[in-house]
């Protein structure tokens, strides 16, 4: 279960586990985390549970709430976030949420049990997870055939070259570099040798022959 480590000017004031569906922060005596300073609003901010997520919401406070130096009205908390309300600092600690933990396994929950009764806005199509992966920058240059001299950047995951219905080759951009594969027709030649089935690594400067064309891979950096 995540917790808030509350401090002021470097002095630890309290550690508070977020064990209910909601945790309130403010100057009022009924707040779960009391911040005793007249400039703090009575009900300043709160943390709400949404599934396995914790969402910080500023409750229209007079002096605002910030996370990692940014003013927020609503923020999906991540392990290590630093919440600031005037001179108070609250570190959000949620070790379990860190990738690879048990929280990573698929779980079944009772529908709606962990959600507020109504949705706040229109549904958004579910996107893929944020992943820290970088892809190389590369391009192909024609060194033979009708397009000789042309260069095309490999800006997307997959690019295909050749004649559909005849011989087609694909280049696949991956974090480790680029790969090449035959899509249809005779396997293309890379540096003069036919490409075996499936993805094969393609290095900068490698020559790919497909149809009457020759392409050279150029990787930046």
């Amino acid at each position, binding site marked *: 279960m995540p917790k808030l480590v509350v401090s002021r000017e470097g002095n630890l004031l309290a550690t508070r586990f977020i064990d209910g569906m909601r945790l309130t922060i403010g100057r009022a005596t009924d707040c779960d985390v009391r911040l005793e300073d007249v400039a703090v609003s009575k009900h300043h901010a709160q943390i709400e549970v*949404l*599934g*396995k*997520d914790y*969402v910080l919401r500023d409750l229209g406070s007079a002096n605002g709430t910030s996370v990692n130096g940014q003013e927020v009205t609503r923020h*999906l908390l*991540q392990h290590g976030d630093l919440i600031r309300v005037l001179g108070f600092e609250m570190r959000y600690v949620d070790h379990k*949420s860190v*990738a*690879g933990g048990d*929280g*990573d*396994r*698929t*779980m*079944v*929950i*009772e*529908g*709606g049990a*962990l*959600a*507020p009764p109504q*949705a*706040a*806005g*229109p*549904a*958004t*199509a*579910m*996107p*893929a*997870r*944020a*992943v820290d*992966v970088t892809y190389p920058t590369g391009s192909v240059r024609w060194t033979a055939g009708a397009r000789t001299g042309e260069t095309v950047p490999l800006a*997307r*995951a*997959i*690019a*295909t070259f050749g004649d*559909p219905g005849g011989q*087609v080759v*694909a280049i*696949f951009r*991956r*974090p*480790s570099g680029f790969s090449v*594969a*035959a*899509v*249809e027709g005779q396997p293309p030649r890379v540096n003069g040798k036919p490409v*075996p*089935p*499936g*993805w094969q690594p393609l290095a900068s400067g490698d020559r790919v022959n497909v149809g009457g064309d020759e392409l050279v891979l150029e990787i930046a950096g």
Partner: protein
Amino acid sequence: MNDKILQVASRTDAGRVRKFNEDSVGADIGAGLVAVADGLGPQRGAEAASRIATATVLERLRDHGALAPRVALREALGHADRAIRDKAATDPALKGMGSTLSVAWFHHGRVLMGHVGDSRIYRLRGPRLERLTSDHSFLNEYATGQFTTEELRRSHSRQLVTRALGVSDEVVPDFSEQEVEVGDVYMLCSDGLHDLVEDADIGQALELLQPNLELIAETLVAMANDRGGRDNVSVAVVRIAPRAVSVAEPARGEGRGMFGWLRAMMGR
């Protein structure tokens, strides 16, 4: 109705993090059946549950007797649900096991689909990729309107499913049905793929590599593993090809996991 043939390739992989593969893929091309399941609960149970899910549904639909296809599909998913629950009751170590399931049944020029959980069915028609199933997941059903796209990417609730076979008194699957067209590509996958790979990249693989289904399956698994491979990943790709064209069998790749390259008539 004999103007179309079905071509299928599939692959399942443990991914880059997990030791075990708790997904199952089932295909019976002669019967026009393809299914993907993702087991959950204790490891041994999760493996068993996903296998029961795919095997039961294939077996029940392969020989559906006098039942109308829609009725047979509903009955088959109900049967898989009970089979998992019954199995879990025999062994305390299996308690809590369950499975997602997505099944596509190509039949007389149509495809009937049933699904429970967050395994998906996609369709590429022309250049357009569409999700044909709506995830039974916490975020999709209760929270997409409360989160921005960027927050959804970083949410910790991505693994929460709201429905699964074998875990409640009686499962409520979703069903749909539509006509298939020559050139359509259908793709069933576990969340190990769509959790990590954007639809835009999935669509590119399906569209650009279309002549080579085996390469599509290999590519989708590679895309998920390239992005961390944090979960098991399974894909089954189905292409509706015109009967007149004879399709050369591509050479076999050397990858791991299940591999299939088969074809069959549609409509019997």
